[in-house]
């Protein structure tokens, strides 16, 4: 089989027998609402508690128990809708999605079916080739189910209802995504927006963010949508990408063999790296949706929505624009700086602490270079950075005003990692202040040239490489403290 894949960031193409296929992807993202209590009960939503310790009578569906809407979750969903530049619906309805499962105590999930709280919106992706707009179909609120545990007891399935009733936002994208890389960018952008808003922590390890992935393929250039398969409940971006690649190729193979693609729900086996049929369209549940008679239609006024709008913080797209305008950083740098709200916060704090003579280039380089490397190495978030924004700003200023060289700065940075000390103090205690007195440096250089006459002559005769030798000698003689710029200037003059 002549499998030649041409791949760039925005397109994932599969070539088979002179046919070129593109993949069409839509996502249904399940994002757990950041809220202390559940969607319809006052139980805690804290992650990692002992099984069945955060379960109210409502969550366990005891007879006569009734759901009561948690207003905070409604606000969170509306805020998210605003962040997605989406239409907020003044009237939405909670429906019952009926099916039996051991971890679904009510025998139905309360969800919004016909009338979701949020309508159409969009998300901008920053791809290397430029920006791409991805449509949002809707956002609705629903309850999470509990958890069935099959591998603890040899003969029984155990059920943990801690998650039962936790508020989820289901965010449905339009089938606008064309590659695994775009899926990566989309999930990250969505996560970023929600983290800015404080509406979902986006923690995929804890299951706060998972997605059903709809995949279909078609001959590139075609405008018809192919038959899609839905890959259920994938909980990492990497797995989503792997599942898409497997599934798209499987579908292309089927088409090339002249077979039909069944519309079905599939599961991604992360160990075997393949998708498997879970149930076909014919076996699809009939969920018998109908409006939950225990809950009245949810009505929100324009004033209520406007109030929430006024509470929306600056979001990544606007922040990026401002960073470019105000701080003169490049679009690429701005994208990196705003991608995570804590990075943006850190950067802005550094900028503020740098004061009037701020050096953006240095700030960006130190944050995205040295600091990111350390965070990566230690596998921690910027919010847990061992060096405070204030002290990093001081360090950058010490470089900017010539007190220390970049090289010394790296030494100081290492020391700061151990305990977040003011770099000024390190400079003073360790005597690391840069030598910038021209007279002192001239004397030092005179001595070096004197000691290395032969090399000085060679240099003059054209062996320009030896310049570096003199710089090195000067730095060594000064104990690394000599101002490298001055050394350069003086050496050029003297040699």
């Amino acid at each position: 089989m002549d499998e030649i894949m041409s791949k760039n960031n925005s397109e994932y193409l599969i070539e088979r027998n002179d046919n070129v296929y593109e993949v069409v992807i839509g996502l249904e993202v399940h994002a757990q609402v950041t809220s202390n209590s559940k969607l319809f009960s006052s139980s805690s939503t804290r992650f990692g508690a002992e099984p069945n310790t955060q379960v109210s009578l409502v969550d366990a569906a005891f007879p006569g128990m009734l759901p009561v809407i948690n207003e905070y979750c409604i606000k969170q969903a509306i805020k998210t809708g605003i962040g997605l530049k989406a239409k907020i619906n003044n009237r939405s309805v909670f429906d019952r999605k009926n099916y039996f499962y051991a971890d679904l105590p009510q025998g139905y999930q309360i969800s919004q079916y016909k009338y979701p709280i949020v309508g159409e919106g969009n998300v901008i992706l920053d791809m290397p080739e430029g920006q791409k707009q991805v449509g949002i179909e809707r956002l609705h609120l629903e309850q999470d189910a509990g958890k069935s545990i099959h591998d603890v007891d040899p003969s029984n399935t155990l059920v943990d209802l801690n998650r039962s009733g936790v508020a989820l936002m289901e965010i449905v994208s339009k089938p606008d995504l064309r590659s695994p890389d775009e899926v990566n960018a989309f999930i990250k952008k969505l996560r970023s927006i929600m983290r800015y808003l404080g509406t979902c922590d986006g923690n995929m390890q804890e299951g706060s963010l998972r997605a059903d992935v709809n995949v279909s393929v078609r001959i590139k250039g075609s405008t018809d949508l192919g038959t899609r398969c839905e890959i259920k409940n994938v909980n990492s971006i990497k797995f989503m990408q792997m599942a898409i690649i497997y599934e798209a190729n499987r579908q292309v193979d089927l088409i090339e063999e002249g077979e039909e693609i069944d519309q079905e729900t599939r599961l991604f086996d992360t160990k075997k790296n393949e998708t498997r049929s879970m149930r076909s369209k014919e076996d699809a549940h009939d969920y018998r949706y109908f409006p939950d008679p225990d809950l009245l239609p949810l009505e929100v006024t324009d004033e209520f929505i406007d109030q929430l709008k006024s509470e929306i913080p600056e979001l990544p797209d606007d922040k990026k624009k401002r960073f470019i305008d105000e701080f003169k950083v490049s679009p690429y740098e701005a994208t990196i700086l705003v991608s995570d709200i804590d990075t943006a916060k850190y950067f802005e704090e550094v900028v503020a602490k740098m004061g009037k003579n701020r050096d953006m280039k240095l700030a960006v380089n130190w944050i995205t270079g040295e600091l990111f490397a350390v965070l990566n190495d230690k596998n921690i978030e910027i919010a847990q950075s061992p060096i405070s924004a204030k002290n990093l700003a001081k360090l950058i200023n010490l470089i900017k005003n010539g007190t220390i060289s970049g090289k010394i700065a790296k030494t100081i940075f290492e020391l700061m990692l151990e305990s977040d000390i003011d770099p000024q103090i390190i400079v003073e205690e360790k005597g690391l202040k840069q030598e910038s007195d021209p007279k002192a440096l001239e004397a030092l250089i005179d001595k070096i040239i004197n000691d290395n006459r032969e090399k000085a002559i060679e240099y003059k005769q054209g062996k320009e490489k030896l310049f570096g030798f003199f710089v090195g000698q000067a730095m060594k003689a000064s104990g690394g403290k000599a101002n490298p710029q001055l050394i350069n200037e003086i050496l050029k003059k003297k040699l």
Partner: protein
Amino acid sequence: MTEITSLSLFELIKNIKEKKISSNEIAKSFVDRSEKSKKLNAYVTENFENCLNLSKEFDNKPNFDLKLPGIPIAVKDLFCTNEVRTTAGSNILNNFVPSYESTVTQNIWNEGGILLGKLNCDEFAMGSSNETSFFGNVQNPIAKDLVPGGSSGGSSSALAANLTPVTIGTDTGGSIRQPASFTGTVGLKPTYGSCSRYGIVAFASSLDQAGPMSKDVKDSSILLEVISSFDKKDSTSIDFKRNNYSSELTKNIKGIKIGIPKEYRVDGMPDEIENLWKKGIEYAKDCGAEIIDISLPHSSYALPTYYIVAPAEASSNLARYDGVKYGLRSYGESLIDMYEKTRSEGFGEEVKRRIMIGTYVLSSGYYDAYYLKAQKVRQLIKQDFDQAYNTVDAILTPSTPSSAFKIGEKSNDPVSMYLNDIFTVPVNLAGLPGISIPAGVDKNNYPLGLQIIGKPFDEQTVLNIAYSMEEKINYKNNITDWWMK
């Protein structure tokens, strides 16, 4: 002095406040009579010992400011009661003991009421004769082998037999008013949203309402005042200004306009019902009311609409009884097998029938034709009443199309059983208050009831009309205590 158990709630309260009788004496009387009345099968769970102890406690530390000072009350077994078994008349909840209390019963205990026991009812309140209960038939104290009506059949039986001074039932399509009519007692279904549904085993959430059942209208007004409350735990509970129903109760209904809906003259309605209605109209006139002919054009669609909406909601509401968390669990080879066996053994025929109907009408492909259509018709039925209330203050109809029937007479004919609800279901569909009061007897001396339907939240007018007519009708049950002999 007449027997304690034959006194009205109002008289009991009066006597207890005047310290003429103690709570314990009252409790003893009702417990004694209940003990002697086991043949009626009115109780599912007795709370007699507890009740006697609590009555003593009350007597030791009486609080006469309460509205139900030390009064023992038995309640329908659809209300969840803390630490007291609550079955909803079903095998699937045979051993279910709640750790919580329904708002309505809590309101009663807060006002000094004491739980006497849990009363039999149709399984999950689905039935009109109390024959669908897992705990067996209930006898109507009016005559042997007569149904007490349903679904609040244990309540109506216990009330008419003087086993409890008053009681509470729930009414989804007539389950308070029909059994009241069959037993010569008073039963009020309040406006939807008046009494909290919190802690009441759900049948059809958009129709279920708790309400008082009593021997006379005044007692219902006292009990309604206690049980009606705004409750944040029920999202459909409504925060409206509630009257002091008992102190505002008046027989003066001069000038009140009462509508007579022509559509309630249904085909094949027995003459005695027709005559009762005519008599009722005369009584209303005697009380000073103005009688106006009205039309409720969509009335004939009410019953089919009800039998789509109620089973649809029930099919979903009963999904939680799956053997996983509480209640009955039958052994199964797999999860699905366990579900099937649990629900096959746990539910009775009528409940299964309604789950099947409900599942069917909500299924894709049938939803629009049945459920959605029914919801639209429900709106039209509501609008009929809205229209009528532009010209009248209340509406007078028979409560039921017949008197009580024999046990077993209709149990194999669900449709004829469903027809029992023909006059009561429109009231639930429209969410209105309605009361049934005893108004006469049929050829067998079985009681017949009249229904007064009011405007939303206007229980006071409904009660006032009933109170006024009650005096004119002057109905007395003739209970011979046949079951004790």
